């Protein structure tokens, strides 16, 4: 199950997300469902269409399937989706 402890290593596609902080000010406040993930970006489906958001230096607030809210530093996600599983993280979610 996806939990705040393993969210950095688990599947992000399908989760609801909000951009809390981004170096591009136009992206802060964006919210919607994650529909794709690449090494450097997440694609978020929001009411204004699909937006590709860089992971690096972006803070995301993710809603887990059980309703728990987790804030993630996108810099910790900069990695190919299939490689994240075995990555070791200093801080494991908050």
């Amino acid at each position: 199950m996806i939990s705040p402890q393993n969210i950095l290593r688990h599947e992000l596609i399908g989760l609801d997300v909000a951009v809390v902080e981004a170096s591009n000010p136009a992206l802060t406040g964006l919210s919607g469902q994650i529909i794709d993930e690449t090494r450097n970006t997440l694609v978020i489906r929001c009411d204004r269409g699909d937006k590709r958001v860089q992971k690096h230096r972006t803070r995301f607030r993710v809603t887990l399937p059980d309703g728990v809210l987790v804030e993630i530093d996108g810099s910790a996600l900069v990695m190919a989706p299939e490689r994240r599983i075995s990555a070791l993280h200093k801080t494991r979610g908050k």
Partner: protein
Amino acid sequence: MARKIPRSDTRRIARERIAILFQRARECIPLEPARSDRYVALARKISMKHRVRLDRGLRRQFCHHCGRLLVPGVNMRVRIRRGMVVITCLSCHQQTRFLARRER
């Protein structure tokens, strides 16, 4: 010393992620087949990277040639021929054969 994450742990998460991706692929194939293809590709990447064998149910759910999710009656044809299950993908018209063995 670098700590290591036990392989059992990574494989458990890999299995969960593969299940989630196939689920999503099934949900979006009618409206967005390209997105569905992407999810199947991601699931297979995870399975190969972490050496998790897909179970038989999942293995037969996508075309081994073009990678598209196979939906019975929509884009796949299943025939039993000479002791083989022959699956034709109606998206790329390639055939995949599996041995048809009696369940024990």
